[in-house]
């Protein structure tokens, strides 16, 4: 019996040899933008994302759900909706911190963007440590609903949070530049906060591991900007720990690796991460598919390969087709590869090119690739 899209994607992620290249498409940015502006193609008005991807013949990615949600003990969380911002204040017995999050239709997948971070100055260290120590993760019942909704059409792309502990400090708590200034000025305090963050993320994984999720995000949206020495010291040991934990429970670890990663490539393999998703090669980064394959080894699962901008009208259909055919040639024999976007269908991209990829796979993507 033929595999459904969900089975195909999971089999590929587990390193099984398939008859043809699997394809897991991501269109949320395109879908959300055009839904909000009432500019979806006439045919697809009123459709949900998964149905559109199914109609194009690809496997689906269901995103922005969480396996765990955080609850708090002795921390009062007050949210104020001040459109387009949401201000969140965290009140603890030893002080308060707050953050300001912007929700905008240009922020693609409608995730919030923190315009003011929780950490503002040295005085915030103990308060943030307190919040992390008093964070109690619980299973999010909405996860099962989302998983049921995507059903046989695809898989859930989530985990116990999107980022590693160091990246949560860097990106979510402090902001990129402040993190590096703090690491230079107050390294002991940064490392103490990082240890507290690690403990919290471990608790999140201990809860999340009880879910039905098969592949867990352990890192996302990093790039060479992370700084190679920081990646070596603070990221790799964590990835090794958490992938070992996931593997011991029969689960896989995945990274959302759509940035410029030339300088980090030599360290990818030792992270232990299984799936390198949203992979974005030349021309949006400087790295080729071959270079990533050499970096992650034959057993590493690469998911991606088609940069977002290829879906723009600046590339003709002929150029698009030629890119996809060349990519298939480049990745031959094609095992341990899932075709996908790096990282999304752009808001003004052509949805019909999702279907073109399906057709090109039928024509050229039989495994092992022999064109």
């Amino acid at each position: 019996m033929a595999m459904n899209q969900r089975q195909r994607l999971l089999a590929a992620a587990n390193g099984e040899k398939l008859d043809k290249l699997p394809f897991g498409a991501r269109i949320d940015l395109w879908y959300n933008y055009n839904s909000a502006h009432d500019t979806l193609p006439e045919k697809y008005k009123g459709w949900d994302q998964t149905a559109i991807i199914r109609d194009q013949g690809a496997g689906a990615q269901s995103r922005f759900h969480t396996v765990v949600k955080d609850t708090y003990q002795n921390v009062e969380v007050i949210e104020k909706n001040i459109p387009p911002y949401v201000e969140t204040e965290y009140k603890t017995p030893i002080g308060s911190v707050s953050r300001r999050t912007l929700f905008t239709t240009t922020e693609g997948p409608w995730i919030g963007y923190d315009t003011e971070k929780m950490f503002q100055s040295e005085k915030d260290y103990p308060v943030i440590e307190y919040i992390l120590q008093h964070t109690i993760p619980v299973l999010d019942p909405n996860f099962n609903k989302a998983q049921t909704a995507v059903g046989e059409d695809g898989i859930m792309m989530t985990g116990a949070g999107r980022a590693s502990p160091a990246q949560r400090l860097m990106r979510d708590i402090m902001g990129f530049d402040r993190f590096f200034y703090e690491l230079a000025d107050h390294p002991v305090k940064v490392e103490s906060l990082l240890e507290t963050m690690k403990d919290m993320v471990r608790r999140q994984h201990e809860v999340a591991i009880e879910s039905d999720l098969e592949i867990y995000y352990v890192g996302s949206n990093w790039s060479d900007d992370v700084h190679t020495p920081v990646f070596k010291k603070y990221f790799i040991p964590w990835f090794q720990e958490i992938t070992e934990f996931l593997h011991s429970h029969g689960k896989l670890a995945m990274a959302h690796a759509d940035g410029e990663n030339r300088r980090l490539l030599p360290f990818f393999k030792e992270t232990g991460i299984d799936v390198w998703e949203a992979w974005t090669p030349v021309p949006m980064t400087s790295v080729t598919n071959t270079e990533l394959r050499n970096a992650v080894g034959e057993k590493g699962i690469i998911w991606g390969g088609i940069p977002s901008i290829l879906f723009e009208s600046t590339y003709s259909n002929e150029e698009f087709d030629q890119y996809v055919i060349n990519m298939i040639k480049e990745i031959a024999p094609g095992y341990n590869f899932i075709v996908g976007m790096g990282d999304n269908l752009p808001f003004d991209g052509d949805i019909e090119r999702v279907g073109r990829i399906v057709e090109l796979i039928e024509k050229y993507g039989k495994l092992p690739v022999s064109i």
Partner: protein
Amino acid sequence: MADYSLLSQAIIEGKGDQVAGLTSEALNTGAKPQDIISKILQPAMSIVGEKFSSGEYFLPDMLMAARAMNNALTILKPLLADTGMPTLGKVVIGTVKGDIHDIGKNIVSTFLSGVGFDVIDLGEDIPDNKFVEALKENQADILGLCAMLTTTMPSIGTVIKALEEAGMRSKVKVIVGGAPVTRDYATHVGADAYAHDGGEAARVCKELMTARGAD
């Protein structure tokens, strides 16, 4: 000038805590503020840019160097009231409308300032007409446009069109960059140049100034 290699080295190594003292020492030995900037600080930042482009330095190294340089400028700028800062040219820079990401643009601003450009940073989420107004008001030589999202990338093209409509396109060089922006895309929307990072932006802007002189 005397040997100020320690100051230069402190900038290159991002040792901000040492820079203030070394800058004061340089002033005390009779160095002119504009010479400290043009002969020590700006060459040091050029070296930082080269180290980044060659792969020796990482983005945080540039951040630390820029912070160190700002420590020196805090002391030197008030002393330049009469002569003004030595400048390679004026650059108006900003992130296009709808885009609120600032890190990449800030790094480029810092680098351009570091090597000697007078940078007018308009910030993020800037409407097309604000770029045009700022260029007119400041009589700038170069416009730097940043987009970090595929959703906002097309605004680079609309700003360039707005420049054309305002009859200003031939008066200003346009350099663009940002995560989804490629060299091909820059050409496609009619920009004069593309830069992948702050170090490259500084080098390319110097070339654009040379090209302006030749126009």
